[in-house]
Every structure is written in structure tokens, then in C-alpha cells.
């Protein structure tokens, strides 16, 4: 098994110590840190697959995300030292919608999207529709993610998507809504392009959207 495969497997097995040890070894051996980050994209994809197959649950995503974050932190100084930067695979604006201040789900998505190679603009929680509109104008993202746990979040998602339509920006972005209480009804009602109850599936959908475009 190559160190790359071993590394990917260690994260998928949620073996924190082992994954970090391999990261250090790869960096010490002078391997291109970008290759390690490319492996994280593979991990993100596989984590999504495992979730869809029912092999992974939120607690596993949290652990995998934590390991990916730790790996990124080990890699970052080396990347800087070499004067390299990672070419983002897509731009992603995300926020918890107006009226809702829950952020567990959103934070898992942010961690995994970054690890997967997205440039993430995190608008925080209780984000009013207008702030989403402004962020789309300013950052020109490929994907907009709206998160929310409360049932009322669905109404806010609808208002936000309406505001994006009214600003003439709806065709410029793909929109995914996520949270414990969104479903197919909520997708239809809000006018989003996709819905997800979990971060991993969300990332998979987003990777599919930007897949043909870059990299």
C-alpha cells in the first residue's frame, strides 16, 4: 500500500494518531504538501460514500472532520514555507439562515468543504437574506449553502432564495439547503437545487456540481 493509500485509509478508519503520524512522515520525507491535500479531497469523497451506504454517521463525520482539520493544520506551514497555495476546486458561501443560531451542522460542512478543497466563505449564524445576496455579489461563489436546525429555518431559506431570485442571481449559483428538518418537501417549497440532512452527502453533491468545471 502506498503511503497515500495508507493515509486515506487511516482517516476512513478514524485512526487519528496513525493519520497524523503518516502526515508528519510524508512531510518529513519531502513530499509535496499539495499531494496530501489532494488526498483529503479523496477522503471527503469517500466519507460521503460511506455515509450514503450507512457505514458512517454524524459522529464519524465529526471525527473524520477533526482529523482532516488537524492534517490541514500540519500541512499549512509547510505549504507557506514553499510559497505554494492550493487551487480551490470551487467557491462556497455558507451560513445558518435568519432566525436560527445553530451551527454544529454548518461547522462540520465548513471543515469538510475546506478539506475537500473548496474556498469557504462562512457568513456565520442568523444570516439575513440580504447578507447572502451581498456575499454572492462580492464573492461570486459556485455554491451557496443554507443551514438551519429549526423548523422556521425553512421559511428563512425560502425568503433567502426569493431574495437571491429578486436580485437576478439565482442562475449564477447552485443552492443546497441542509439541516435536521429539511427534506424533499422543503426543497420544493424553498426552490433550492438540493437538500441534505448531513454534511457528507452535502459535500458529495457539491463535488458533483463543481466536478466537471475545474481541476
Amino acid at each position, binding site marked *: 500500500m502506498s503511503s497515500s493509500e495508507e493515509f486515506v485509509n487511516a482517516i476512513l478508519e478514524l485512526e487519528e494518531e496513525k493519520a497524523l503520524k503518516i502526515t508528519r512522515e510524508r512531510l518529513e520525507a519531502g513530499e509535496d504538501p499539495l499531494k496530501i491535500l489532494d488526498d483529503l479531497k479523496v477522503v471527503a469523497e469517500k466519507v460521503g460514500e460511506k455515509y450514503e451506504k450507512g457505514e458512517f454517521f454524524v459522529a464519524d463525520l465529526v471525527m473524520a472532520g477533526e482529523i482532516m482539520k488537524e492534517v490541514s493544520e500540519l500541512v499549512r506551514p509547510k505549504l507557506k514555507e514553499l510559497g505554494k497555495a492550493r487551487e480551490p476546486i470551487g467557491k462556497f458561501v455558507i451560513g445558518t439562515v435568519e432566525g436560527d443560531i445553530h451551527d*454544529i451542522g454548518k461547522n462540520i460542512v465548513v471543515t469538510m468543504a475546506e478539506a475537500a478543497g473548496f474556498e469557504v466563505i462562512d457568513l456565520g449564524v442568523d444570516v439575513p437574506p440580504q447578507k447572502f445576496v451581498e456575499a454572492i455579489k462580492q464573492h461570486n461563489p459556485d455554491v451557496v449553502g443554507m443551514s438551519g436546525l429549526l423548523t422556521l429555518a425553512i421559511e428563512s431559506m425560502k425568503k433567502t432564495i426569493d431574495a437571491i431570485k429578486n436580485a437576478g442571481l439565482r442562475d449564477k449559483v447552485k443552492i443546497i439547503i441542509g439541516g435536521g428538518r429539511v427534506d424533499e418537501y422543503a426543497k420544493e417549497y424553498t426552490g433550492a437545487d438540493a437538500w441534505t440532512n448531513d454534511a457528507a452527502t452535502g459535500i458529495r453533491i457539491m463535488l458533483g456540481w463543481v466536478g466537471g468545471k475545474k481541476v
Partner: protein
Amino acid sequence: MSLMGVNKEPIDVLIERQQKEPETVAKERLDIILKAVELKVPSRVPISGLGGDIMAYYNGKTWYDVCYDFEKAREAVLSFAKNFPQDFPFILAPYGLEGFIFALAFSDFPDFSNIIRFLTGPVHDIIKDKWSRWPGRELREHQHPQFLGGEFMKPEEYKQLIDDPLKFIHDVVFPRACPGLGKPKSPQWNGTLIRIGLTLQRVASFQGALFQELGKLGYPAIPMTSAYSPADIIGDFLRHPTGAMLDMRRHPDDFKAACEALIEHILKVATAIPPTPPLTISFIPLHLNEMLSPKLYNEFYWPYLKKVILELVNKGYKMFIFFEGDHTPHVDTILELPKGWGVAWFERPRDFIKDVWEKLKGHTCVMGGVPTNLLVGGTPEKIEEYVKNLLNQTKSEGGFILSTGVAELPKETPKQNIRAYINAALKYGE
């Protein structure tokens, strides 16, 4: 139809009856709930699951009102209860957020441990806890109060928690999470506790009066106590859910020992109100459940929750458990409980009939089946069709309570949809 005043819709007949003959209606309601809990076939399938935003806003109140202005909270609850009759409502007024840590902390005080169990806005104002956010305070007046939780215990402190949970909560957690209390043993600390007591008395007497008034609308009073899943105490109040999930991998032995240590105190809270026939319910909302793989659930969550449930069922309580999120992967474990142990309310199972009902019927009283978003975004026709279909598959078996996945309907929910839901339940539930 209803406009003619002759052929009234079923909901209108019930609205009239619950005002004209509340005692009879209350008896009927208690009877159908009991039958359902005992896995028998009631004369009509009980209706539940209506509440949330819609209750606050239906007659023009805000979330601030139902959290802080008791008179307005009363009006909101009563007018909703009058116009949208249900059999097994879950009413929190003034609105309450998750606050079981307080019940636990005062588990040696059975006279008030269940009164302090839900965190209210007025108590939040006094202790300024960091677990919750309230309308008109940290949130705007029209925003739903929200439980956020947080990290108020470090992983290396598990030992202290395990050694003496109550001491740890009072000495370490409260000073960190409730800055309003000030320093332990200071005049501010002592005075604040007295002020909490005065506030609880106000809340309790308001609630007592409100339940009397609900009785006049045909709503039976069913005594309820509170219990909790040990792992959720760690996730909700001490380590934050994310921290708890990481601890299961990084500090597995500590996590399990802490769950074990919490059980006796949880049971003290639950048994503070003795079980009285015909029915005393003990309520547990589950939180981490759907986030865990069966492996983690069966190792860190279920064994301790199961102990709590079995103890209480043995003592004569019927459990009422809210299985938050998608509990599908863990449904089979419920069959380990004795038949007729209580009511299982499912929020969002993948396939209600296949994954929940078919597995549990005849063993567990199952509650749920109606996606909340169907009431929000559906049409009266779609809702009627859905409810009719669901009831046709369940009612002949008994042991079923019709409900939404969670009693949190946004204020935009069309009134005619809620009426359609109740109408369909009355029409096809017999």
C-alpha cells in the same frame, strides 16, 4: 358544507363539544390515550403534534410574549387549544428550553426538581446561563428561543464528574455556565438562588392555573416527570455534542463511567413525582441518538438509557421518549424493552411504516407518522389523503398516536392545513 352550519366539519363539532362538555371530552381523551399506551385499539386514534411558532403567533403574540409575558402566554395557549383541538398536546408555557441539568443539580429536592427542569426566560434572566438564547434578550423578539449548549467541562475533568456529579455541577459547571450566579457562596450567589426560587413559584402557580383552564377545554391532566439519557447530559450541558462525540473515541472509559455515575441522580429526578394510576408519564427527549453509529450507540448511549427506562418502567411509570432525528438504525434496540413500556415519538424515520411501525406495533405505542413539512407546504387535499392512508395502515392494530414529527410548526403554516390534519384524523381515525 361547514358554511351552511348544518353539516359541520368534524373539527368544528369537536371545538364545540370541548367547550360545552369538557369533562366528557377530557374523559374520552384520557381513555383513548390510555388505550393507545396500553397497545389496545382506542375508539379513535389520538391526535398530537401541534405547537411551536403557530401557537405563539396564532392570535398575534410573539415569542417574547410566550416566554416572558405570562398573561399573553396564557391567551396564546388557550386560543390555540380552543381552535385546534388535539388529544395529547405537549404544552410548555411560559415556553421552556432544555434545562435538565438544573433538575439534576437539585435532584435531592423532589419538591422542586421537576419544576426547575425546563429552563424559562425569567430564570435565564437571573442566572444569565450560556446554554440558551432568548427572544427580546440575545435574540430579536420574534425569534424562537434556542438551546445552544456549549463546552463547560474539559476532557480532563471527567474524573471529577464521575466522583461526585452533583458537586461537580454546582462547584465547576454552574460558575462557568451561569455568570449571573456570581462566585459560589458569595452574597450574589445566595441571593440569586432565592430569586430563582421566587420566580419558580410564580411559574408553577401560573402553570397550575393554566392547566385548570385547559381542563375546562376538555384537556385531561396527565402527571409527567422528567428523565434523561445519561450521554445527552454530557453532550447537551457539559461537553457540547461535538465534544461528546469526540470523547467517545478519545476518552471512552471516562465517558462510560460518567454515564453510569449520572443514572442514580436522573432516577431521583424522575421519581420525585410518584407514579399514580391510571397513567404517569416520564419524558425523555433524545439528542445524540441519530448522530451515532449503531456501534457507538450500543456502546455509549443505549446501555445507560436502557437502565433508566427499565428502572422507571419497573416502578410503574410509562415512558414517553422523543426519538429526535432519524432513529431508524437503532429502532431494533427498542424491542429489548418490555412490551407496553411507553410511547415512542419518532421525528424523522426514513420510512415510518416500514422502519418503525412494522417493527414496533404490538410492542410499543408509536407516535408520529406525519412529516411537519407536509403541513407547512402541502394542500388540505394532500394532507387528508396522507392521513387517511396512514390511519388505514395503523388504526386496526391500536397502540398508535397520530402526530407530526415534532410539534414545531412555523407561523406560516396555513390554518386550513392544520384543520385538514385534525379533520382527517377525526374522520378516518375511528
